[in-house]
């Protein structure tokens, strides 16, 4: 309920808070236009019930009766917005609707005032809002804020807002304006340059300075754009990597063409959904950790399915990769339809936890958290996989079996069991990929279909049986794709990438990092 605090604070500060209008509430029963003005009026009316009313309006608990009286609903009790006394209106109530314009009005009213909120983060946010508004009327408030502000970060933000407002006002002495332009140039983002570019009828030297600043900002922005592209590429690459990592095991190491790989990913995504439902039902406190808990769950589920598939289907088809391809394709069809019958055809809602939504602004770079975490996650998964293959007994046996099955068997390794585990591992990894994908894509029966071809491309491009290759190729494809997109458009970019891949495989049929010696061969 900091809105209330804010409003009260404001009454203390605003010099123009004194003259209240006749009935600031009146507009609330009218159209959006009227409501918007009412909100602005209320903010400065000093009416004790204003805060509660605006809060109710924002929360959608404000109702209007046919007789224009306004009521705030809390549970079953109705309170008259004007008088603050509870009662029962005659005639049926209609909710007072809010649209974006009104929301903006509310935000601005509150936004301006949080400038004095105790929490620095809030003050910075407020300053940012004011920067966006760059409204000359705010200058006095900004001056007051600057005067009492101590936190350097917040100070910076407020200075920028002040500079913006000052330039917009267009009355300050030239030297101040030049200083302001300098502040904006140092801010150096699009908003700043747009603001500078929009300056009109300025004295020549100011205009010149503004122009120089705009140019400077443009230069910086170009570099940032490059960096941004790389980030996009990495994040796409990491998604591809996750989708392909499991395949790098099943296809790369075992040489099994698992067309149902995508469905393993899909199962992982649905597991995430189930875990989330379970948490919602039994341990709402853990809601934020749902995704984390889903990772092992998805690994186990997909892994188990994988082992089952290997035992029941694939082991009968070793040495017949093309038949395996067909059988697993059939499996993928069945799995899709099964999920469709169980969960229904429509998408499932997997909510991203708070810590995974939103973005960080780093200079001109927008880094969305979910993407960032997925990049990290992909890195971890691949690292873990490599560790397993290299350092664990299981990994040792796997490599032994894949390098020389008969010899391995002779050494007393139970090759069938290793096969099952290897396939399980690959599928499990696919499941974990599903958890990540559930954060950025549809959780629907078709989820897997969208990634299967790309995954195979990644593995083949990287060189079968070589995790490093998979890593490099995934990231390369991601970045190439993202840098082509702006130039060629999304579709053509993808087509180009595919064609390039086809041509590349002609050149190097064994991929970027071909496996030396006995490679996987059909």
């Amino acid at each position, binding site marked *: 309920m900091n809105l209330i605090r804010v409003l009260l604070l404001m009454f203390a500060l605003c010099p123009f808070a004194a003259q209240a209008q006749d009935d600031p509430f009146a507009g609330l029963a009218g159209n959006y236009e009227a409501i918007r003005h009412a909100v602005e009026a209320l903010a400065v009316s000093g009416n004790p019930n204003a805060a509660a009313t605006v809060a109710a309006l924002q929360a959608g608990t404000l109702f209007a009766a046919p007789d224009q009286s306004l009521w705030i609903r809390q549970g079953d009790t109705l309170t008259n917005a004007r008088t603050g006394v509870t009662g029962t209106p005659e005639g049926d109530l209609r909710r007072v609707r809010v649209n974006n314009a009104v929301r903006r009005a509310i935000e601005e009213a509150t936004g301006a005032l949080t400038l004095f909120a105790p929490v620095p983060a809030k003050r910075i946010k407020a300053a940012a809002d004011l920067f966006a508004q760059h409204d000359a009327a705010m200058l006095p408030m900004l001056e007051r804020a600057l005067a009492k502000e101590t936190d350097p970060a917040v100070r910076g933000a407020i200075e920028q807002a002040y500079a913006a407002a000052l330039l917009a006002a267009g009355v300050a002495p030239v030297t101040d304006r030049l200083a302001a332009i300098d502040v904006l140039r140092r801010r150096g983002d699009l908003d700043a340059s747009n603001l500078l570019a929009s300056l009109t009828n300025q004295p020549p030297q100011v205009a010149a300075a503004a122009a120089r600043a705009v140019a400077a900002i443009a230069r910086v922005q170009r570099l940032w754009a490059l960096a941004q592209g790389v980030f996009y590429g990495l994040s796409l690459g990491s998604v591809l990597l996750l989708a392909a990592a499991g395949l790098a095991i099943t296809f790369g190491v075992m040489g099994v*063409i698992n*067309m149902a790989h995508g469905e393993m990913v899909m199962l992982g995504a649905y597991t995430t959904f189930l875990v989330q439902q379970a948490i919602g039902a039994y341990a709402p406190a853990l809601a934020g950790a749902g995704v984390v808990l889903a990772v092992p769950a998805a690994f186990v589920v997909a892994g188990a399915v994988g082992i089952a598939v290997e035992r029941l*289907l694939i082991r*009968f*088809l070793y*040495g*017949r*990769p*093309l*038949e*395996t*391809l*067909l*059988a697993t*394709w*059939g*499996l*993928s*069809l*069945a*799995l*899709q*339809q*099964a999920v469709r*019958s169980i969960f229904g055809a429509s998408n499932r809602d997997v909510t991203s936890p708070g810590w995974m939504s939103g973005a960080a602004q780093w200079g001109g770079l927008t880094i969305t958290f979910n993407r960032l975490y997925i990049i990290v996650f992909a890195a971890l998964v691949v690292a873990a996989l490599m560790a397993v293959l290299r350092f664990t007994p299981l990994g040792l046996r796997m490599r032994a079996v894949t390098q020389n099955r008969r010899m391995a068997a002779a050494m007393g390794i139970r090759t069938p069991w290793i096969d099952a585990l290897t396939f399980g591992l690959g599928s499990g990894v696919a499941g974990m990929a599903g958890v990540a994908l559930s954060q950025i894509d549809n959780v629907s029966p078709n989820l897997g279909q969208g990634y299967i*071809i790309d995954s*195979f*491309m990644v593995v*083949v491009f990287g060189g079968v049986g070589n995790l490093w290759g998979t890593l490099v190729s995934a990231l390369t494809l991601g970045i190439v794709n993202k840098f082509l997109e702006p130039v060629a458009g999304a*579709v*053509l970019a*993808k*087509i180009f990438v*595919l*064609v390039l*891949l*086809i*041509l590349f*495989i*002609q*050149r190097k*049929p064994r991929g970027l990092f071909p496996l030396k010696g006995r490679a*996987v*061969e*059909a």
Partner: protein
Amino acid sequence: MSRASLTLCLTMVLGGAALLALLNLVVPAGSALHVPTYTVSLFGKYLSYAMLAVAVDLVWGFAGILSLGHAAFFALGGYAMGMYLMRQIGTRGVYGNAILPDFMVFLNWKSLPWYWQGFDHPAFAIVMVLVVPGLLALVFGWLAFRSRVTGVYLSIITQALTYALLLAFFRNDMGFGGNNGLTDFKDMFGIPLHADATRDGLLVATAIFLALELLIARYVVTSRFGKVLIAVRDAESRTRFLGYRPEAYKLFVFVLSAVMAGVGGALYVPQVGIINPSEFSPANSIEAVIWVAVGGRGTLVGAVLGAVLVNLGKTFFTGALPELWLFALGAVFIMVTLVLPGGLLGLARRRAPRAVPAAPAPEPAE
């Protein structure tokens, strides 16, 4: 593939088609023997699928090339035919524009793109039906076989090929009607498409082309060329040391098969009345492969059998038990590969040893 089963297959295809056409045309609608036009165009569709299946079998069964992109050639042939049919609509389109197809009018294209030129001439269209798929196969195959891309790798890049085409044809800027594709055809070679007689004619024509395809395919695989091809399939490097150039053999048969698929597509389009990018979807190609597997790989006749049976199944399931269709199809995939690698024909004559890794080896012609 034995001569007996071939002749049997040919008689069944040609005779069956003729019979259906007759029952549809001659027998009055009331009678129990009457075959509804629906069934006629249904079987017309099956037979054009069968042409695709035989084309797939030719490369997979005899050259060991598992193409997961063969539907692309089918679709290209279909588009070539569709473009011709589109131009035939002329002023009967909703906008009555004599030159531009409807979709170009309302996306206000000003003039016909160059690659649509000439498609108003049937002869040109027919040539394109053969040339376009053939050319693509030639270029793709030349690149792939020359650099010895084989087995799974080949399968995967063929899939990438058809996927790329799928994306490309979805683009409206390509000028092929985007997702809507080409449809609302009026007539073909001046004959109205919607007349029953036309449908019967198309069915019979498809049957005849399928028979031709079978005969050509059979000649190829039983010739010395075919023997080399099978040798390449089972021991490619050995044939090299004998002085053969496997790439040349693969390329020839790949192009031939692509052209056959193209013709199938061209016959398919007028019978189903639409061609659109989803024909390029990898799933279609894989489904075509399973038709072959069901009938029996490397038997040509089996391809026809498989195509017809699987599609009958599809028609039946999607009508009677919609929810079960994908389960059924999935089961077919798994069962065929697991328990009858020889396909139905393999079941019919237990010649192929269960263990042969490549596939049931086709028996030589007697």
